[in-house]
């Protein structure tokens, strides 16, 4: 175990997602050991080998289920080393039409996007705030949480709940060296879609998004959002309700 805060591992929850993987790669490139966690750790073995081979840092995989709220603290205490950064990249978009009439699907959306990640970051904040040096918990929300839309309002509402929880968590730990960061991605494509038919300049790559996250943590930012999406969402948030109701996006 090292006392240098920058060399503590980074824990990536939901490491199977593109944003989680790209962020893990960037943090590893800076020399951080990586802990990858997901429901099926065996599915993370390929990424663990990838990151270890690329950057020569130790990488471990861990089984973790976002919807098991009570297990968050024990999971963290069971890690081989307490991480200095915890990034939660889990989420479940679901299908709005299937979700709205299905109580179980609603519960799943809320647990995966809100209560599960929130409970985990709550437990992580309690532990990381006691570590010496600067630490960070990072949650991936969504611009969908900025304003409920017909297309995905259960998802958006869960992400909004997550954002509000992180806001409170941030205030609670304001006097400590713990950073609480909310990331709000918009459309994210993969790095390799060059030459394909992309819907305009609003799409950014998972790698770009990951870069924003790592930069945000380094610069101790509370919010991470691509400037294009910040601009767009400030317009969307401020649309008068009468106008918003007539839009179709």
């Amino acid at each position, binding site marked *: 175990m090292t006392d240098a805060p920058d060399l503590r591992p980074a824990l990536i929850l*939901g490491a199977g*997602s593109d944003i989680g993987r790209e962020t893990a790669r960037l943090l590893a490139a800076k020399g951080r050991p990586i802990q990858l966690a997901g429901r099926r750790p065996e599915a993370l073995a*390929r990424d663990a*080998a990838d990151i270890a081979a690329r950057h020569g840092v130790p990488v471990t995989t861990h089984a973790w289920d976002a919807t098991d709220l009570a297990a968050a603290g024990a999971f963290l205490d069971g890690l081989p080393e307490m991480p200095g950064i915890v990034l939660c990249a889990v989420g479940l978009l679901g299908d709005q039409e299937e979700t709205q009439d299905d109580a179980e699907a609603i519960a799943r959306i809320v647990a995966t996007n809100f209560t599960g990640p929130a409970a985990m970051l709550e437990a992580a904040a309690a532990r990381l705030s006691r570590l010496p040096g600067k630490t960070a918990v990072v949650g991936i929300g*969504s611009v969908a949480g900025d304003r409920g839309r017909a297309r995905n309002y259960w998802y958006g509402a869960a992400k909004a709940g997550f954002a509000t929880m992180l806001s409170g968590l941030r205030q609670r730990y304001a006097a400590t060296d713990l950073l609480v960061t909310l990331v709000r991605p918009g459309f994210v494509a993969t790095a*390799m879609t060059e030459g*394909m038919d992309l819907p305009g300049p609003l799409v950014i790559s998972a790698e770009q998004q990951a870069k924003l996250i790592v930069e945000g943590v380094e610069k101790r930012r509370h919010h991470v959002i691509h400037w294009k999406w910040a601009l767009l969402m400030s317009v969307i948030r401020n649309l008068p309700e009468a106008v918003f109701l007539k839009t179709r996006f």
Partner: protein
Amino acid sequence: MSPRPAFRPAGPADAPAPQPAPLRADGPPPAAPLAGWGRFPTLPAHRAAPADLAAAAAALRAQGEGIAPRGLGRAYGDAALPPAAGPGLAVETRRLDRFHAFDPETGVLVAEAGVSLGEIATALLPRGWFPAVVPGTRFVSLGGAIAADVHGKNHHAPGGGAFGDHVAWLELMDESGALRRLAPGDPGFAETCGGMGLTGLIVRAAIRLRRVESGWLRQETIRAGNLDAAMDLIEASQGWTHASAWIDCLARGTRLGRAILYRAEDAAYDELAAAQKLDRWALKAQEKRLGPPPDLVPGFALNLLTMRAFNALYWAGGGPAERRGPALVDWGTCFHPLDAVLGWNRIYGRRGFVQFQCALPPETAREGLRAMLRLTSQAGQGSFLAVLKALGEGREGASLSFPRRGWTLALDFPATPRAFFVIERLHRLTAEHGGRIYLAKDARMTAAEFAATEPRAPAFRASPARARAFATALARRLEL
């Protein structure tokens, strides 16, 4: 084969989600236009981008015929396009992009085929290793680099050679999804290095990297007033590890073939200035170079006037070595100058462009190159990417690998009928001078021209390594 949406959400955390493409119950999704880096030709193609080896095996089994391996799409012509007629599927390796293992003692890297050489350089430079051979762009995939047996500025140098010279082993997937591991000397290995994907899908490989002390190179820039001077200068520079020349293919008369030679050596750590020591691996320099991709490159069409002006300015800027002196340049500037303009392939506009690259034997090279440059400058056709380089020995027993001892000239042209006419005559000149054409660049050769320039073709065609289930538009065109 599953319908590929235009882009996939980056995991569940990504929202608002794009509307998924409607799933079609009635068979496969329609073919969509697909092209190589030159954007010519554009052909309707089905494509699949399997996420792992199991998915790749399933895609190959389901397809069974007309499989066209495709890496990151940097082959200029139709080498990575499925055949236009009959069943066809471009199987892309871009999501097979994981490293498996790296040994920092020996510099041997095991990685999946879709990893780009730029990623390899960026990830492993901090540990003192760099790909042994890099072509003119960092955006080629590992699998593509093997399949095209690419070469770089160090082909002539000891430790250089072609990409295939540094492959410890590769894994080839056949149409049944079965994997075979091939090492140099194994049946099929020689055919696969330079085999343009026609021996199977390369899914994984082990390559030997080259040790470097920094990400910088000590580069000299020297002007040569005409072709003979340029070739003399290049010959005199064979002791340098990296050497190639930009050539002004529009210059005429006594200035025919005037060129700027770039020759470089890896810079040792002690050679770096303080500022460069802070960025020892020149990774920050890459970020500055690449920058964000321009949303849209102005679609102005290059014409003779703008191109002549560009070339004249570029030549003037080359400056005599006495004045410029040696300079330290980062690896991207040295090896991948055009990567700084992401999407430079759009500069020729919608019609696209075609590349011509030949390799001529040393005995006929001077005469052949002079004839080629005279032809292009007289036709007023020619490019801002014209490269002249001396090649070292080709690999013993290499099957369709491009590099051979002698000289290579690369030119690009807008995809216009007038340029096609010039290219046809360039093909004839290549055949007359005993040369061959680089398949990774080619989009225009006919089967007859191929036969005239590639005496090794019948042996490749008849080889048991040539997998019949694999076919590309290029293979059909060349009857390969």
